């Protein structure tokens, strides 16, 4: 057993001198770290060269401590987790460093001993529950495997234990779930099963690799709650890998920030997130859209794209994107500066910059007053959706056993979008929000109801072959890669809409393309590039530019920023806001992220199970009265503010929504369900004067009694 280290071990000898020479005197002996990673360097090699996924990474996790490892995509956070588990694949190789677990360097152990530790002393839960369970084996068997293997339980004993474990992770019907195959369970249940597997052998360390990223917000909230509880009750240590600062804030005591495979900052969660020391941390925290922030403000963003190293860093990895960088930063690598509390920052300017916030970009032009006032919207709506209904998969086969009523994706939805208005649609997966967007663009034919665009039925026009109106309504996709034809240059992709618009002069079209590219902040020379030569953010800009090429009035943004890293997301959101202001565009902004929608939308529709449960100006929706679902949704949003940590949260059951019934779609999961009336009758719509509508059986007055989820927004809507 090694003794407790006096300080965070110096990352490398050359840098040792730069760190604090004497550690602060210890008030109480800190327990020895359970996991102590030192100087870990990992690279991936293939025929085209090597990529350094982690450079000289060091951190420690003490018993009972949950440490967050955060960073954007490509920062190397998952690679480090896999290296600890000895599960690096795809040509990954640990070049150097130590991984001390309970004082033993795992790298020095033979493979069989490392394997014996895995699943027993060190357990893991991965990002995607849908693919982490073997589809061919029952859930119970998969949970039992490590019990039999490591604990020597008989299959019968293991089965008993499996049910206990499932019960412990909050599964109500453990016997049924144990006998089920993975696909029979919802994502939340699957993730619980994975957690039960990890807990089975009572491990000392949990490796959690983005364990909730693939889940809906309400489910995520419950899983995080469960994890926090378990870590507490089992005295577990955990390495929590995440890109989501809000979640890290909720569950982690300490946090380590990675950038380009390099640890840039480490420290207590509260301190790092409220008073970040490293410029990158500052940028990351600043770029996050906030529900409570002033919506007219531009989001601060980090320019450029994520760094990727091929060798040891020769300069500060963040210098190319750092607004504070100078010659020194660009000429020598940075050392980790630590203090006695275990806080550390890899920036020689950290002290000098203390208190200096991430700079706002050029003062944002004042936002044009939103046109979306209720009266104006009703006078001249651009889009009118009336009793829209969409059923998928209905079948009228001659074979009786094949006849199916189909799945209701959208059930009787009506709303309007005014000119220049941004309407947000918020909902979880399966809520029908994308279907609404597609129906608006005549990409899918409504089963019932009408969609009028500028007074005309777009679906009918397209059916007749008239495409002129359609060109005025465009779409910006989630997957920036898939939305561009890989075999066409950016210029060619943008040229087509112009050709179709009858612009015959090729030179003039070329100039237009260049103009559009410039407009979305890309060099005009990008017209000659192929999509795979661009980064994700650049591709999304091209997508937007292409959508603008038809000179539309209306753009549907379907999860347009969801796949982007926080720093890039801020960029795109800013761009979309600018375009709206300059060109008077209307947006239907579809997203699962309330923070994003609250930043950009004028009005919000909250959809659940294909129906609109709440609708109104954003300021109204964020304040009571809430629809019970909205309330749960809002309370589930992970946030940075520390004071929210202990606030009551409304946790929903995992049960999957069953839309299409006669009653309220949310009835099955509603924590405030009144009784059978919710199941059997469609809820009445309560409407207030400012266009705030709630569909619920609970009287408006009762709903209004609830406390605000965001007290800082208390009071009347600002507009």
């Amino acid at each position: 057993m090694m003794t407790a280290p006096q300080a965070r071990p110096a990352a490398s000898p050359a840098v040792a001198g730069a760190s604090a020479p004497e550690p602060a005197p210890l008030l109480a002996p800190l327990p020895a770290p359970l996991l102590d990673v030192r100087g870990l360097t990992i690279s991936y090699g293939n025929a085209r060269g090597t990529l350094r996924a982690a450079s000289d990474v060091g951190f420690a996790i003490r018993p009972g401590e949950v440490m967050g490892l955060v960073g954007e995509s490509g920062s190397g956070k998952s690679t480090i987790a896999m290296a600890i588990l000895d599960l690096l694949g795809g040509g990954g190789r640990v070049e150097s460093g130590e991984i001390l677990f309970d004082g033993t360097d795992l790298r020095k152990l033979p493979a069989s001993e490392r394997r014996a530790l895995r699943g027993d002393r060190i357990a893991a839960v991965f990002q995607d529950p849908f693919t982490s369970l073997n589809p061919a084996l029952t859930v119970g068997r998969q949970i039992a495997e490590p019990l039999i293997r490591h604990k020597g339980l008989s299959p019968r004993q293991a089965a008993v234990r499996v049910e206990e474990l499932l019960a412990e992770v909050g599964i109500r019907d453990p016997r049924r779930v144990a006998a089920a195959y993975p696909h029979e369970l919802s994502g939340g249940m699957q993730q619980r099963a994975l957690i039960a597997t990890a807990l089975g052998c009572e491990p000392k360390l949990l490796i959690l690799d983005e364990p909730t990223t693939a889940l809906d917000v309400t489910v995520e909230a419950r899983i995080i709650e469960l994890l926090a509880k378990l870590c507490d009750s089992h005295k577990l240590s955990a390495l929590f890998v995440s890109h989501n600062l809000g979640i890290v804030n909720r569950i982690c005591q300490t946090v380590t920030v990675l950038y380009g495979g390099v640890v840039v900052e480490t420290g207590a969660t509260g301190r790092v997130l409220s008073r970040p020391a490293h410029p990158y941390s500052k940028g990351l925290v600043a770029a996050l859209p906030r529900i409570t922030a002033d919506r007219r403000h531009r989001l601060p963003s980090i320019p450029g794209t994520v760094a990727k190293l091929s060798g040891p860093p020769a300069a500060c990895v963040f210098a190319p994107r750092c607004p504070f960088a100078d010659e020194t930063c660009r000429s020598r690598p940075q050392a980790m500066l630590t203090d006695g509390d275990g806080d550390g920052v890899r920036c020689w300017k950290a002290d000098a910059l203390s208190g200096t916030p991430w700079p706002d970009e050029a003062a944002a032009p004042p936002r044009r007053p939103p046109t979306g006032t209720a009266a104006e919207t009703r006078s001249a709506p651009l889009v009118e959706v009336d009793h829209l209904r969409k059923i998928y998969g209905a079948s009228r086969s001659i074979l009786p056993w094949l006849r199916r009523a189909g799945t209701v994706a959208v059930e009787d939805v009506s709303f309007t979008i005014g000119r220049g208005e941004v309407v947000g649609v918020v909902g979880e997966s399966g809520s029908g929000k994308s279907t609404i967007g597609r129906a608006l663009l005549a990409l899918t034919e409504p089963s019932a109801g009408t969609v009028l665009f500028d007074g005309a039925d777009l679906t009918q026009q397209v059916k007749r072959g008239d495409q002129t109106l359609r060109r005025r309504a465009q779409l910006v996709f989630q997957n920036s890669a898939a939305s561009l034809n890989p075999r066409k240059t950016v210029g060619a992709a943008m040229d087509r809409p112009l050709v179709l618009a009858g612009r015959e002069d090729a030179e003039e079209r070329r100039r237009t393309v260049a103009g559009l590219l410039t407009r979305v902040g890309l060099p005009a020379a990008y017209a000659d590039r192929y999509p795979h030569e661009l980064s994700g953010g650049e591709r999304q800009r091209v997508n937007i530019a292409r959508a603008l090429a038809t000179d539309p009035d209306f753009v549907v943004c379907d999860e347009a920023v969801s796949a982007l890293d926080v720093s890039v997301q801020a960029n795109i959101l800013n761009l979309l806001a600018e375009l709206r202001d300059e060109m008077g565009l209307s947006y239907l902004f579809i997203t699962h992220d309330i923070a994003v929608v609250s930043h950009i939308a004028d009005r919000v529709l909250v959809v659940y199970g294909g129906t609109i449960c709440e609708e109104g100006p954003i300021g109204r929706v964020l304040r009571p009265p809430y629809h019970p679902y909205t309330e749960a949704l809002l309370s589930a949003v992970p946030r940075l503010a520390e004071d929210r940590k202990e606030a009551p949260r409304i946790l929903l059951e995992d049960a999957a929504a069953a839309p299409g019934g006669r009653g309220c779609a949310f009835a099955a999961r509603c924590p405030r369900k009144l009784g059978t009336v919710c199941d059997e009758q469609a809820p009445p719509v309560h409407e207030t004067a400012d266009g705030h509508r709630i569909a619920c059986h609970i009287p408006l007055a009762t709903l209004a009694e609830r406390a605000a989820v965001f007290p800082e927004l208390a009071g009347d809507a600002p507009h």
Partner: protein
Amino acid sequence: MTDATPARQAPSRGLLARLPALPVSLVIGVLLLAPLAVAAVAGSWLAPYPYDEMNIMSRLQPPGADFWFGTDEFGRDVFSRTLVGTGSSLVMGVAATALSLLAGVPLGLVAGYKGGRAGEAIMRAMDVLMSFPPILLGILVLAVTPPAQWKAIVAIGIVYVPQVVRLTRAITLELMQEEFITAARLRGESAAYILFHEILPNIWPPLAVEASLRVVFAILLGASLSFIGMGAQPPSSDWGLMISEARPFVEQAPWIALCPGFALATAVIGINLLGDGLRSLLDPRNTGAH
């Protein structure tokens, strides 16, 4: 800019510059096929003897100085025959594959793009065709008329149409889900433009790989049909026919069968390697062989 974006490959940089990056299998495949291609084009000029010249005095001669690969039961030079037969054997595979692509790709595109009744009808028709084992379908087609090589080509072409249709349809359906197709529909492109300018360019790489493997099957099926007398006709020196005719003499004169057999194997291995190479060339992400 950081090095996050992959290095651009300037279109001006020619194939030569990328040569070292060419997959090994592609290079070996081309090396194996090059002499066969030459033989296919110029076989009758290169052959030391006319392929059909009989010489009773030197029948069933073992390989030697005069006849490098021996002679057959008519005293015909096996090497010359194999050389001249290259064209017949390869044409069989290539032409049949071309035929199946010509018929199958449009059908697959329509079935994938239009769907509905027309698509359903096409796929059900393909189901019926696929319900026949391939060689049986070939035999059935050929049994209708006296055998001839072009009929064998048509038959093989028909045999492989369903596979091409299915593949094309599958890729088309997959592409239809792609958002760039949605984007094209949104800007009001016609169906024809979407099919030919958006979908087709993305279909041809997998189709090219598929086609190269199809050629192999077609060559082998062609050889099989010739073997049972329903393909090339004597005195053609189609390899399948040569091997078939050599059967009774396999004990006294194995070289009659072995020479075209090796040629056939070389062709098939060559095309296989070419296909594999093409696959990894066209899809750098590809890992496992399929």
